[in-house]
């Protein structure tokens, strides 16, 4: 447990100091949302209609960018070997990596996107919905992305095709996330879409550490 925390803390420290992809990708996210009015020629109605879908799509792209070389850097400078030899289980390494990538990239997105949407005059209940749906949806994206990133770690030419492998697995989250953000207000009664999203999160949390651990183990055969 302590190892887990240490791994996460050092990861966060490194990415804040280095200002690497994961931090840069947040700026990518913010900028792309801010230039949206230019794309739709300032048409407020179209914007309101598609905004949520676009937010989800941009989130997905951001995560794919930042997940691409998640394990590769640690492997190249030998730190991953050293952590493995220290006796930390590969499942823990995997889980800490995917959690730290969530904290670094997704947490700011989850916080920022409702605020950014304020600029587009959406109703407040929509903002709450999008906050919660991103909060539940992004961990799923991170975990699945980390699994594929761990899978391709074992191969030299892996990281170029990671998006091809990852995107099909992301579609359910995209669909339900958008549906959940558009669903009715959730405080009185949780809507169906939210329930599905939560269930999916639980499945992924239960399954992905094992698959991710096995995938990392491939590197050590």
């Amino acid at each position, binding site marked *: 447990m*302590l*190892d887990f925390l*240490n*791994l996460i803390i*050092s990861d966060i*420290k*490194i990415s804040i*100091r*280095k200002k690497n992809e994961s931090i840069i990708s947040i700026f990518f996210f913010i900028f792309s949302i801010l230039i949206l009015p230019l794309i739709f020629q300032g048409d407020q109605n179209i914007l309101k209609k598609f905004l949520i879908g676009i937010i989800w799509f941009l989130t997905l792209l951001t995560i794919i960018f930042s997940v691409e070389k998640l394990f590769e850097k640690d492997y*190249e*400078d*030998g*730190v991953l*070997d*050293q*952590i*493995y*030899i*220290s*006796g*930390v289980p590969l499942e823990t390494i995997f889980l800490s990596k995917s959690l730290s990538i969530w904290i670094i990239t997704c947490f700011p997105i989850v916080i920022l996107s409702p605020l950014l949407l304020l600029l587009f005059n959406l109703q407040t209940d929509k903002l709450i919905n999008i906050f919660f749906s991103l909060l539940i949806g992004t961990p799923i994206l991170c975990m699945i992305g980390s699994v594929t990133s761990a899978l391709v770690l074992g191969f030299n030419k892996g990281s170029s095709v990671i998006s091809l492998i990852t995107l099909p697995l992301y579609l359910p989250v995209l669909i339900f996330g958008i549906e959940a953000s558009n669903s009715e207000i959730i405080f009185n009664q949780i809507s169906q879409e939210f329930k599905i999203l939560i269930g999916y999160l639980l499945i992924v949390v239960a399954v992905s550490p094992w698959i991710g651990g096995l995938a990392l183990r491939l590197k*050590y*055969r």
Partner: protein
Amino acid sequence: MSFFEAKNISCIRGNKLLFKNLNFKLFNKELLHIKGSNGSGKTSLLKILSGLLKPISGSIKLNKKNINLSKDSYFKEFEYIGHENAIKSALTVRENLNFFISINKSLEKRKLEVAVQVFNLRNLLDIKIENLSSGEKRRVSLSRLILSKSKIWFLDEPTTSLDKKNNSIFFKILKEHLKSNGSAIIASHDEIKIKKKNVNL
């Protein structure tokens, strides 16, 4: 009694057979020098010995126990310094050392002072790794050996980019380690002027 034993190890990387049916034993207080030209599989052999790679065939035993049976307990028995320095360039020296002490149970925090002193790292402690020279980076990496309480060392080209002074410091530490019942396996193409066994790849 045989302390550390490798039997019939063969290794294939890519489509190339690196070595076949390698045998050796290592007792307490002994040093094993793995020699070989570039690409002959020195690094692969060390990775195999430390359980980071699986050999195509053969077995490795420590105290007559196969290392694959319980890797977790085997990992506590040795210290491995790889070809890469295994330090995070965005962190300072102190943070790096503390990080590895915190996750590795066989590194002892109380020896930190000693390690810093031996490798002259005191002035560098709060400097980020990315600002260090390659020799200084290697010293940080090697200081792990002093922190460690493991009896076996696996070292991959330990003296690369070390200057003469630090080179002799390293060999002094190595001799002391051997004296205190330790043993070490070193892969390098430099000559080593200590009593040793040789394995040629």
